[in-house]
Every structure is written in C-alpha cells, then in structure tokens.
C-alpha cells in the first residue's frame, strides 16, 4: 500500500476518533462541572443536611453572645428564649417567647448551684444596651457577627440569618454597604425572596434615600410575596393566626412602607390605597383607619373631593 495513503487514512481515523471522544466526554465534563458548582459550599459537602443543625446552633450562639453569655442551656427553662432575641429585636419575626427572660435559672437548687452561680453570667443584658459591664457602646453588638456569618455559610437558604445580620450591620454598626452585600448574597442563594427584597428596599429608602429604587424593590417584593403561595387567596393568607404571622407581617410592612413612600411623594390616592391594604394585615387596624381618615381629610381639603369618593 502507498505509504502516503496509509498515513492519510491514519490521520482521518485519528480525527474521527478524536471527534468521537470529544463528543462522548463533553456532556460528562459538563455534568461534573455542574456537580462541583452545586457543592461550592464546603460545609454542605462535608456535613450534608446536618449543616442546618449546626447553622441553627451557630445562630443560637450569636444570641448567647448578644446576652453576654447569660443564656439557658438544654437543662434550663427556655420559654423566654424560644425566639432568638437578636431576631425578635429586629421586629421582623413572630415572637414565641413567654415568661420572664431575667430569671430562667429559677431559685438555686442547692448550695453547689448557689455557689456556682457566682462564676457564670447571672444577669440579663443586651450587647447594644451596655453589655455585661453596662458601659459598652451599641457597637459592641458586632460580637454576634462571626456566628451569624458562620450560620449563613452553613445554611445559605435560611433567610432569617441574612435579614438579622443586615439589620444589626445597618442600624447599630452603620455599615450600610456591608448590610447591602449581605442581602445581595442572600438573594443569590434565595432568588426573588420577598423578605430579603423588603430589607434591601429599606436600605435604599432609609439609608440611601433613593425612593424610586426602594419603590421598585418593594413592588418586586410584593409580587414575590404573591407568588409564594399560588392559588391561595390573599384574604386567606392574611387571616389572623399565629402560624402566618411572618407572612402577614411582611405584607403589612411592605404596604406600610410603600404608603409612606407615596405620601412623601404627594400621591395621596395611591398612599390611601396602600394604607387600606396594610390595614388588612395590621394587628391595629383602627390606628391605620384614623390615619386614612386624616389623609382623606387632607385630600378633600386640597382638591375639594368628598371623602365618600374613596
């Protein structure tokens, strides 16, 4: 056989083999790459679903730091600490706490217990209200951040961790840019989450004073809130039960903030419509009704339209 022809045929065979190998390996590499992206989080890779338990422990540790170590163990009465105070103080979650938070230890059981209490934190304090020595500034609350960061890394899908972290960064530590980054990180893991969008809107409204951007974000949050329970009527979602407190609270807050925004912009019609919506979810609808009446009066005074027209 002609050696040149043999060489040519060998080259063609090699080309076909290479093409076939590439076509066979490409989808496998793609699948492998996807699986690597899915297990980006080292904790998830190592711990699996158990990472959520550790994330919760880390969140509780942050709350213990908020109390400067004065915190119940599994052997103590935890009724007053069912909801972490760091989350409760943000005003964004339902509180399940009952009883007196200052005396979860109860009276000493014996002399060893009484003696041992001299060597452990024995007074209820909050880090942003003076801390253990009653002298610390509100910025001492920064000490809870490592545990919140760890909690977020262990369970990136827990929205509460991001909102609580952003709240303390924004309100006590004045680190608004960091708070925004935390919320955006949360949105990366929980796209389109209404709670995170609400908090992000607050940053634009309260800190950046960018009303237009805040309105867009809050309206997106409302749309997301509506999409969270497709097929469930709004009236059902706003029924006053303990189970749906967070849902109602978020709706009320979104409508309230949007109403304030409209009032600030002078759009009284839109503001009244928002307040009416907020009233549906509010625990104190009478107060909102008073405000609505005032707005209607003001509106009537300004353009002569009678309140009955609303």
């Amino acid at each position: 056989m002609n050696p040149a022809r043999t060489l040519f045929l060998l080259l063609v065979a090699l080309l076909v083999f290479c093409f076939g190998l590439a076509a066979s390996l490409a989808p496998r590499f793609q699948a492998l790459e996807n699986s690597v992206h899915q297990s980006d989080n080292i904790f998830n890779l190592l711990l699996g679903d158990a990472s959520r338990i550790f994330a919760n422990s880390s969140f509780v540790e942050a709350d213990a730091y908020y109390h400067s170590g004065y915190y119940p163990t599994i052997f103590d009465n935890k009724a007053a600490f069912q909801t972490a105070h760091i989350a409760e103080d943000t005003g964004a979650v339902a509180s399940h706490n009952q009883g007196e938070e200052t005396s979860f230890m109860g009276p000493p059981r014996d002399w060893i217990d009484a003696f041992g209490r001299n060597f452990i934190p024995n007074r209820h304090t909050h880090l942003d209200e003076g801390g253990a020595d009653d002298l610390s500034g509100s910025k001492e609350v920064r000490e809870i951040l490592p545990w919140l960061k760890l909690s977020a890394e262990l369970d990136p899908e827990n929205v509460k961790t991001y909102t609580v972290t952003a709240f303390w960064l924004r309100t006590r530590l004045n680190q608004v840019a960091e708070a925004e980054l935390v919320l955006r990180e949360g949105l990366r893991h929980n796209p389109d989450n209404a709670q995170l969008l609400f908090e992000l809107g607050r940053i634009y409204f309260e800190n950046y004073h960018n009303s237009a951007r805040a309105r867009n974000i809050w309206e997106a949050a409302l749309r997301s809130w509506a999409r969270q329970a497709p097929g469930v009527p709004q009236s059902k979602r706003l029924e006053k039960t303990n189970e749906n407190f967070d849902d109602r609270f978020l709706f009320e807050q979104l409508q309230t903030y949007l109403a304030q925004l409209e009032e600030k912009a002078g759009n009284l019609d839109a503001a009244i419509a928002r307040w009416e919506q907020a009233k549906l979810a509010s625990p104190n609808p009478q107060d909102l009704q008073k405000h609505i009446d005032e707005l209607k009066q003001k509106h009537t005074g300004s353009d002569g339209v009678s309140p009955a027209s609303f």
Partner: protein
Amino acid sequence: MNNIFAVAGIVIKELYRRKDFYVLFILTVVICLVMASVNIYNDNEIIRYIKSICLLLIWVSSLVIAITTTARQIPAEREQRTLLPLLAKPLSRTQLIFGKFLGCWLACGLVLVCFYAFFGALAASREHHWPLLNYFQAAFLHWMTLGVVIALTLLGSLVFAAPSSNSTICFVAVAAILCVGRYLDAVALTRPEPVRSILWTIYYAIPHLEIPFDMRNLIVHDWPLIGWKFIGLDALYSLAYATVFLVAACLVFRRKAVN
C-alpha cells in the same frame, strides 16, 4: 520537704524536655491566629469569638498536659526500674507521691502562665484594655482545678494497670464533669428512685471542676471581677478534693508492691 522539692524539680525538667507542651502551644497559637485572620464584614475589632476559642484550647491543652504527664509518672519509674533505687534513698512513699504531685502541678502552672500570657496579648491586640485581675482569677482557679485533676490521675496511676487506660478514664471522667456536672441535680429531680438517689450521691461526691471552667464566659464577655471571697472558697474547695485524692493515693501506694 527538700525531698519533695527534689522530686518535683525532676518532674518539671521532664516536662520541658518533652514536646507535648510545645506542640500544643504552637497549635493553639496557630489556630487562634488563623481564626483572627478571618475577615468578618471588614470589622477588625471583633474579638470575643477568638477569646472563646483560645480559652477552650487552653483548657483542653492544659488538661491533656496535666493528665498525660501525671499518668506516666509512677508507671515510668516502675518500668525503668528506678522506683526501688529511689525509695531506697531517704525518701518515703508519701514524699514521692507529694513530690510527683507538686512537680506536675507546678509544671502545669508554668504552662498556664505561657498560655494566659498569649491569651492576654491576643485579647489586648483588639480590645485595647487589659483586665489583668480578671485574667489572674481565671488562671488561678484553672490552676487549682488542674491540682484536683493531677491528684485524681496520680491516684488512677496506682489503681489502673496501664497509663493509657488511666489517661482515658481520667479524660472521660473530667469531660463528663465539665459537661454535665453542674446539671446532675436538675436531672436527678426528674428521675424516679433509685436513679434519683444515685444521681444525687454522684452530684455531691464529684469535684465540681466545671465551676472554674464555666468562668470562661465571664472572661470572654468582659464581666466584672468575681468577689475574692468566692475565689478563695473555690480554691479551698479544690484543695480539699486534691488532698482527698492525694491521701487516697498515699494509702494505695503504701500497700502496693513496687517490684
């Protein structure tokens, strides 16, 4: 007394010839520095989590050093056949036990000085204040607690056959006391008889090592000083338990064949 100090001196020299302390100290330093290098929302003044980790590592390291050093003292003398020549000198068995105890205790004291000096430097690097008296209280009670652990391990080294089994049993016992010792009475209240009585007996019988251990929270969260009266009482409490274990060790050693 001179004999006791002579034996103690040898134990201290042994500690600084061995690598245990250096390894644990360097490990503690490295872990703490790595933790301190973590960027947490660009805030460079966060310190309490580092203090907490550092104190925990100090406790673990000191317990490891105390138990492993003490557990091998008497068995090593026996294995190397130096126990008989040692007792042939004008040195009683009681003096040997007290010498070994004192040596291990003082060696642990030196170890604690190094560890707490590092802890103080680490805390001061971010807190910009130095509550020396608080650190002294913590280190002092820590040292007193190690005295109880050392006496217990010394007694164990005369009762159990091998240093490894003695170390393991001591570690388990100490860890159990540190973790649940404080709550045994609360657990007892919820149990029926005779478990309740057994738990109460254990609760009152064990040395409550967790009292100084739990004090870490006061240091981490900058609580004010503890009353010196309570520090003194806890020191006496620890000394009483250490004495009980040492007397028991002397009694066991007096009846034990050394060859």
